[in-house]
Structure formats: C-alpha cells, structure tokens
C-alpha cells in the first residue's frame, strides 16, 4: 500500500473528508492519478489539472508512496 498526501484547490475540497483542503489517502501499490481521483470520489470534469511533486501529471501516471499531489479546479481569477 502507498500513502499519498493530497491537497484540493478551490472548491474541490468539498470532496475531501470533512471538507478539508488537505488529506492523506492510502491506495494499493501501482495506483495511478486517475485511481486516486476515483478513491476520493472527485468527478473528472471538475478537475482542471493534477500535479505530482510539483510537476503536471497525466491521469495514467503511477503514484508512489509519499508523493505530494495537488488537484486544481479551473480558475478564472478576479
């Protein structure tokens, strides 16, 4: 099993436990970014992009124990 530290940006935090913006998730070895999103229950259409250890990641990228994942919603600013 691997443990991933994830941060949800914008209003995506509503999909995290307790509505917090940071949480750790435990997944089976070999899990990918898309598996993490499924485990969280975060709809793909709400996600603009994901970074792993500060580098943009594709949905199929494999995650490793201790990875830091940021999940971003589309942003407009203002």
């Amino acid at each position: 099993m691997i443990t991933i530290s994830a941060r949800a940006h914008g209003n995506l935090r509503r999909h995290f436990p307790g509505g917090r913006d940071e949480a750790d998730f435990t997944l089976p070895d070999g899990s990918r970014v898309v598996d993490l999103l499924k485990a969280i229950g975060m709809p793909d259409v709400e996600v603009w992009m994901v970074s792993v250890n500060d580098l943009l990641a594709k949905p199929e990228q494999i995650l490793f124990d201790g990875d830091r994942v940021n999940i971003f919603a589309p942003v407009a600013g203002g």
Partner: protein
Amino acid sequence: MPNGSCGQILRVDLTRGAISVETPDENFYRAHLGGRGLIAHYLLKELKPGVDPLGPENKVIFATGVLTGAPVAGSGRNSVGAKSPLSGGYGDAEAGGFFGPELKRAGFDAVIIEGRAKRPVYLWVHDGQAELRDAAGLWGKKAYDVEQAIRAELGDKGIRVAQCGVGGENKVRFACVSNDVTHFYGRGGIGAAMGAKNLKAVAARGHAQYASVNAERVKEMGRAMTQHITENEKGFTDLGTTGTVVALDAGGGLPTRNFRDGSFEGAKKIDGTTMRDTLLVGRDSCFACAIHCKRVVERKPGEGRYVIDRNYGGPEYEALAALGSLCGVDDLEAVCKASELCNAYVLDAISTGAAVAFAMECYENGILTKKDTGGLDLRFGNGQALVQMVEDIAHRRGLGDLLAEGVARAAEKLGPKARRFAIHVRGQELPMHEPRMKMGLGIGYTISPTGADHCHNIHDTMFVKRVESVKPLGILETMPATDLSPRKVKTLKRVTDLRHTINSLGLCQFVSWSYDQQVELLHAVTGWSTSLLELSLAGERAANLARVFNVREGLAAANDRLPDRFFQGLGNGAIAGTKISRKLADAAKGEYYAMMGWDRETGRPSEAKLDELGIEWAAAQLPKTKAQAKAKAPAKRTAAKAKSAPRRATRSTRRKTA
C-alpha cells in the same frame, strides 16, 4: 418606473453648482438595465467626440443596476464610468461593497457628474436630497481618513463613501475609485477623471426599501443561494481568489516578470495559503453575500518589516500577481504593503504593478538607469523598490511621474526600445491572465470596449472539460484552452454579451447564478416577462454603444491588438514556448467582429445591428466612412432615419440648486 429601481437619476453640474433630477421611463431601464448599459448610453449620447478625459467636458457617472441592492448574494455590484484617462476611449469599472445599495436607498439609480468645481467638493446624497459640500480638508488624505472624516462631519457612521483618492487628485491615469475603502472600481483610471473635476467623494445614506413585484420569491432565491454558498463554496471563502496563484503557476500561466515567464519560483511564498497562515486576520464581504471572498491582512508595529493597516483590506489574486509575480517579488509582506498603499491612495493595483514591472524590465535592459530611478536598484524581485515606486506613482515623484501616465504613454516617452515592454491593449495594462494559456481570453482583451479586461471576457480553462453552464447559450462542446476556432469565438461572443449584462444588472460573477436564475430573479423583481434572449441583447446593446463610442474616438481595429510579446514563446513553466499564432488571432478577431454584426476588417458596427438593438440613433455618432464622405448626397436611409430619430429617453422634471 420598474420595481428594483428608484426611477430617478441625479445630475450634478460642478461648474455651476446645480443639481437636478431626471426620471427615465420604464423602457429605458428595460433596455439598459443600469450599470454599464446606462453609462454607455449617457457617455455616447452626451459627450462630444475628442473631449479631454481630464477636462470639465468629461462626465463621471455612478450607476447601479436594476438588481443592485436586491436581498440576494452578489447584488452589491455597481459601476462608475467616464471617458477613460488611460485609454482615451470608453471607460467603466464595477465594484461590490455597500455603496451601490446605499445610493439606491438614498433614492437614486445613478449620478451623472459634469463640469469642474472651482475648489474641492464632495457630493452628499441622502433620502432623495443632494448637496455639494466643501472638501478642502479632505484633499491629500488617505482613503480611510477621508471616510472617517465625512462620517464624523455628517454625524452618521452608516454613510457609505465612494472616493477618488490621492491618486485621482494627482491625475494618475490609472487612479481608480473605491467605496467603503476596500472595494474598487479598478480599471480605466476613472479616479483621475473624478479628481480632475475636484470631486473628492460621493457620500450616500438612505432609508428607502428595495422593492420587488414578488418580494417573497426574491427572498426565497436569496436564501437558496446563501445555502448553496455555505455548503459548496467553503474553499472560496477560505482563500478568496488568492489560491489562484499556485494553480496558475502549476499550469504555466502565472504572469511573471512582465509576462516574460509563466511560472514564478516564488509562487508559494505569495500564494493565498501562505497569506492565510501568516498575515490574514479577517475576511470581508459585500452587501448580502455569504462568500466573504475579501481579504484583511495586518502587520502591527514591531511585527514585521512593514506596518500594514488592516483598514485597507488585503490583496486578492489580481493584486498578488500584479505586485508579486509580475514584478518578480516573492516577499509577501512587501506585496501586501504595496497593495495597502494602492488602496490607501486609490490606485488600480493591476496597472500599478504592471507599470512597475514595465519599469523593472526597462531597467534590466538599460533603458532606465539609477539616474532615472533616483538611485533605486529597480530589478525584478526588489520588494523594497516596489513599495517605494507605489508611493512615487501616487505622488507623481521622480520616475513615478512618468509611470503614472501608464505604460503606453511612458514607453512613447522612453523610445522604441521600451515599446516592446509596454504590455497593454489600447492603453490599459493587461490583467493577470496569460493569453498564451487562455487564448480566447487574449482575443477578448483585444475586443474589450475598455481595453484589456478579464471581467467581461472568457476564461478558456472553464470550458476544457465541461460546458454545462453555457449550454443554454448553444455552446454544447468542450474545447481546448488554446483553441481559436469559430466555436471559441462564438463562446467569447455569447458569454461576453452576458458578462456585459450582469455588469449592467449589478450582479457579481463570483456568485453562481445560472442564466435561468438571472432571468427568474429579474422577473421576480420587475415583473417583466423577460428571457435570456432579452438579457443577452441588453449586453450586446451596451457593447455596441461602447464600440460606437470608441470608433467615434478614432480607436479603430488597428488598436485591437495584443502586444508582440504574446506572439513569442513563454519563457518558462508547464507551457514554456507556447505562443499565439498572429494569423489565427487576426482571423478570430475578424470572426468576432462579423458575429457582432460589425465590419470584419474595421470593426465598425453596422446600421442593421444598431437597428436590431433599438439604438438607431447611435449610427449618427459614427464617423462617415470613405464611401459616405465621397457621396454627393446623403443616402435616403440616413435622411429618413434622421427624421424619425427617437426622442431622448429621459426628461428633466425638476431642478434644485445646491
């Protein structure tokens, strides 16, 4: 007079000290809705072409929308406009806060201010009355002190104050107008037009209740939206817009070092999360809104390198990026201090940051030297120099005097080598959104009636994965952020038309009212059997009035262009090397013109489009085309139209003297 409106517009002639009231008919409100629509109507109808934006012939117009002050989230919005001292074209800006609803409670939907006072004055509007009062003692004071002084003088802490600030007094071309000290009508330099009139402030207080045809339904909708916000917008409440810094940085579209780069190595140091955990001491809100997206930061004496006054709120995303990454500054305290000074002197933080970033790039390229900067080492990243430059711009001291003209004029004075560093569209500095990441937004910058603007624009990243919110506009398919095909242009056209609409109605884009809900809300307030079509046409009407204004001022299609920098590759970040195709950008602009019913080459509105929008009279404001000028006799159509020109939509009813 429809419900939701007072039915009264105040007109103030500062030269003569005369005050009068006009009562437009219901059709006027229905056609223009208030805000931008109202301002565009009056500026086009009443300004002579070519007037000096800083002269007495310019007019400053405060305008609420029909929904401003309704008991629902997002209704604090209202507008102020004038011929822009920054762009020389149509200018207006919107803000939230409490001033707009209070102006309505005082009995007026709008205030038209003309002429120039001999000495500093402020306008006091209260319960259907208005008077001009001496403001000599307020001149030169910072914004919070001005508000406190006016409240003390009039003996009412509930008074709401809109003001131009020291920046406006000194005619800084990007001086803005603030209300309640921390809400900003940011763009276009309207504060300079106000200061040039010797008008320090407008103070409002009233006790009239907002009236709706179906008040219960309006309340229900307000309660439902508040519940939605409470349940779903916690992230927005927590960080406001400031969390955008790291998101855009990760995507490679964070404006950095004067738009040279798209990623900033110091992004995390100036991001909203860092600010929340260090300097944030509170969150502020606007009228009737539960989001609380406004920031409040503070550093008391002895706590840090700068004292930061919480009375001036705190930076939101645009200020964080403009004063931070755009200047290469990762010192959050310095960024917050610079933001506090912008707010205290009532300067547009976007244009201020952009002006300093421009100067920094000129300095690093030898166009400016220490001789010009008064000894400041004006390299990217120097937070101390940033803070000093904001002071100097507000007071027009040294290099600050040149930068106070805006980057376009400053570059003209510094010579051709500086022009490539002047990042603006039609004189207005770009907001903090990278056109090489959001390419439709880049086209939106070029066709905006006010110069580069992100609020009446699209943000392409919103349509990459889903388009549910815009399906009622006939936009059914997702599209890449870099797409510049006709489907993107259609999205730009239809979404932007309705952005003009909410800027007229007085609704905030941060509150997620769907298009259907906007229609229902307007119906519940006014009783009008309205539709999304009618709302969209109102936005298009405002856009066309502003376009005619700009064409009349000689701001032709050649001015509707992005700076050369965006046709070159981004310097770093996740989309490093990405550039916009000039050919595709020109084609998209022409496509937008055509979809608007404008000439594909010149961007001139067609008479048929103006006819369709019910603003036939605006055609007479357009300069003659070459073909028209060559014609010996006026065309039959023109002669016929002149005879049947509609009557002025407003009538003067009573007049009183201050």
